[in-house]
């Protein structure tokens, strides 16, 4: 039985934050869960995926976050408790649905989890999604620890049902990917079937209907504010004339800092966990009892600005600070030492900091950036594109997935990236106003997610570029999740459709379509050259299963290669491919037989044919 289904209320389990959240949803009797994979949220959905295979939970990997929210919006409006999970930028994709869903509301509870990523550990930006609460008018809840994350989920569902609105549940990477002991609670029964009662004048959001619904939303917001005032998740701890207002993981760093600085009797902390709407009376009361206040929040001055406005309303003029010089930055994440330093300086107390080790005489250590795996089909495709484009002046719009790593040297296959699917749309723009050959890259999952509209645009508006779809049969970077193009049979799962990318591309009327097997280097280069010389939209689909996924699914006929004595030390292999299976031994190139996946791309490019298969 899946460990998160353990029916032992009171038992302790050491869980990852994401596991704790999934467990919280199970305890709340969640019946429908939808997602598009995105770090740092991916383990939540992985656990739902596994649990759905042995319980009545319905879980799906939706095409993109907008679809995942639409699915959940419908199930919630049919009275079924639903949860929609995504990373922060995913909420941008779902925002169109979110904004008007707020007007319509829900019947069964709907929790929308946004996993924010301060410091952009694995994201293209570090946007602060608390603002989505303000923008949409929906409540926002934020845990400060792994345990609290679990406990807050059932509360979020109850809040959602009490207000008849979706609730935004906001985490950050340090909650999702921290581990701590958690006490299990009771598992509520799950109600899987619902019903939808016709009520078009409250559901079909034409202007006349929406004008009425907006009034309802604002009334719900007032109700939410009342609940925020008395929520157990907004609380004051400690005592003293100095005040700190904080949220999220900062609360953990502050708890440690106050103890380390020995000022627990002098400072009281207002921890905000129900951060939209903020609780005005509670905050004004807190401010009124402080001499000065420090606002400690990662990201934007969201709370700081709200708190300053409340102070003005209450006629209070005490110093309130958060972001600024010698205070906190809007950039990146916080850490315990930083918080300790700023708190000590702000309140004028001594802070003994253990000096760090002197690093000035440490030799430069070679970088270890993430690299495409040994045998990755994307490396083969990029090499072929590079060769086929020799002599051309190029622009390489790229997209989000493992293949993004191809932009690093020595491959250099990536010139512009802003969001999921941007490869397609930006290719249209670049090719329209420049004279460079535009070749763009997109993966299979990203293609379904948001690449298709850009490709449709290219055909309709008669653009001119080559679109390379890197189809490795899985959503790889986020941990090998399914997408509409994968073979679910490999996961031993039935009942799924399967969409052929080639069929979609041809159905769109793309005038030049070709398929390559990237491990076949020479043929791939020829096919790409043909596509590059085509005037109009050309699509080349590179089909080869993700080597890591293939290994796991036991689909490889892994035969390693080795560098024979014929090697003249040209180093073409290393300098052009930089496969991580290569290493240097006394200035000679060698291949690690454990890492080598046997793709034989290096063997095909070696001018001496010195790379040979290891005999069985």
């Amino acid at each position, binding site marked *: 039985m899946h460990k998160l289904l353990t029916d032992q209320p009171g038992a302790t389990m050491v869980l990852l934050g994401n596991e704790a959240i999934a467990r919280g949803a199970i305890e709340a009797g969640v019946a429908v869960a939808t997602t598009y994979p995105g770090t740092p949220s991916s383990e939540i959905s992985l656990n739902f995926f596994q649990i759905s295979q042995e319980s009545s939970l319905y879980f799906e990997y939706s095409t993109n976050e907008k679809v995942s929210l639409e699915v959940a919006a419908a199930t919630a409006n049919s009275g079924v408790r639903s949860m929609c999970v995504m990373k922060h930028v995913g909420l941008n994709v779902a925002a169109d649905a979110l904004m008007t869903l707020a007007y319509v509301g829900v019947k069964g509870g709907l929790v929308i989890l946004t996993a924010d990523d301060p410091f952009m550990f694995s994201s293209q930006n570090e946007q602060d999604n608390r603002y989505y609460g303000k923008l949409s008018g929906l409540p926002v809840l934020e845990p400060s620890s792994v345990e609290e994350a679990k406990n807050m989920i059932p509360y979020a569902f109850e809040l959602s049902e009490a207000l008849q609105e979706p609730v935004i549940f906001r985490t950050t990477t340090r909650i999702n990917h921290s581990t701590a002991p958690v006490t299990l609670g009771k598992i509520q029964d799950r109600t899987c079937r619902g019903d939808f009662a016709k009520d078009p004048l409250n559901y079909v959001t034409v202007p006349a209907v929406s004008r009425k619904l907006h009034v309802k939303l604002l009334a719900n917001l007032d109700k939410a504010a009342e609940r925020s005032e008395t929520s157990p998740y907004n609380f004051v701890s400690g005592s003293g004339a100095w005040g700190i207002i904080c949220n999220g993981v900062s609360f953990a760093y502050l708890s440690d800092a106050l103890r380390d600085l020995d000022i627990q009797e002098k400072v009281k902390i207002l921890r905000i966990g129900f951060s939209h709407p903020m609780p005005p009376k509670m905050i004004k009361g807190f401010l009124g009892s402080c001499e000065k206040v420090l606002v400690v929040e990662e990201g934007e001055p969201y709370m700081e600005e709200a708190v300053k406005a409340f102070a003005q309303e209450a006629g209070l003029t005490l110093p309130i600070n958060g972001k600024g010089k010698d205070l906190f930055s809007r950039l990146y994440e916080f*850490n315990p030492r930083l918080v300790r330093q700023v708190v000590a300086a702000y309140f004028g107390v001594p802070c003994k900091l253990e000096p760090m080790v002197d690093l000035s005489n440490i030799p430069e250590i070679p970088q270890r950036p993430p690299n495409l795996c040994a045998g990755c089909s994307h490396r083969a495709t990029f090499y072929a594109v590079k060769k086929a484009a020799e002599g051309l002046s190029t622009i390489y719009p790229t997209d989000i997935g493992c293949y993004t790593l191809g932009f690093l040297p020595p491959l250099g296959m990536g010139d512009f990236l802003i969001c999921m699917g941007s490869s397609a749309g930006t290719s249209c723009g670049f090719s329209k106003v420049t004279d460079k050959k535009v070749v763009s890259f997109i993966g299979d999952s990203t293609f379904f997610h948001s690449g298709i509209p850009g490709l449709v645009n290219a055909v309709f508006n008669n653009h001119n570029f080559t679109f390379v779809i890197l189809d490795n049969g899985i959503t790889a970077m986020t941990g090998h999740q399914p997408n509409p193009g994968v073979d679910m049979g490999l996961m031993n799962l039935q009942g799924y459709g399967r969409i052929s990318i080639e069929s979609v591309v041809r159905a769109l009327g793309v005038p030049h379509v070709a398929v390559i097997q990237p491990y076949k280097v020479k043929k791939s280069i020829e096919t790409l050259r043909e596509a590059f010389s085509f005037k109009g939209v050309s699509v080349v689909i590179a089909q080869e299963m993700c080597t890591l996924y293939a290994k796991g699914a036991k689909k490889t006929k892994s035969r390693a290669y080795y560098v024979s004595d014929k090697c003249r030390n040209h180093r073409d292999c290393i300098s052009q491919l930089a496969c991580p299976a290569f290493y240097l031994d006394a200035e000679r190139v060698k291949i690690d037989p454990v890492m080598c996946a046997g793709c034989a791309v290096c063997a095909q490019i070696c001018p001496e044919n010195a790379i040979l298969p290891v005999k069985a």
Partner: protein
Amino acid sequence: MSDITRLIVVAVGGQGNLLASSVLGEAALLAGIPLRMSEIHGMAQRGGVVESALVFGNAQSTIISDGEADVLVGFEPSETLRALNKCNARTVVITNLSPLPPFTVAIGKGVYPDIMELEQLIRAKTARLIAVNAVDLAKTAGNVLSVNMVLLGALIQTGILPVTADHVKEAIRTKTKAAFVDINTRAFDLGFEAASRQ
């Protein structure tokens, strides 16, 4: 800060950092010691660096700031060196000596540090360095992949963590694959013994 022990573990993706951390987590639970951990996921499979922070005792933070690690365990020597920013003069460092040069070295974009110079630098700047050839010991134990257990053995031998060898061995029994428990336990013992001789 004295009832808190802060441990940083750095490794190259694939070396078993996360499994070692989960074994320590279970050991802490058995020992009744509060433990919070954090990891940076995602790049492990792609050969990047995996760093875990483990905070034993009654702290709320799950991450460890620069200069605040009590112990640093490095599964790969250049990564141990790279993680020195987490250390102060009182930090105890345990490192594997078997290098895994990053591909940047192979393409000529970096020079792998000299191991003896690396050891000297770490010894000079921290309280103590325990250096073991964890790959050799892992092979002796029966599987080169038990490098992580060798280093756990060395770590527990220092006595700095509030968990005992028995706790960790029980955790190995429950948290690692049944088929590998014997090898993992042997690897742990070899690492423990190697550290005791330094």
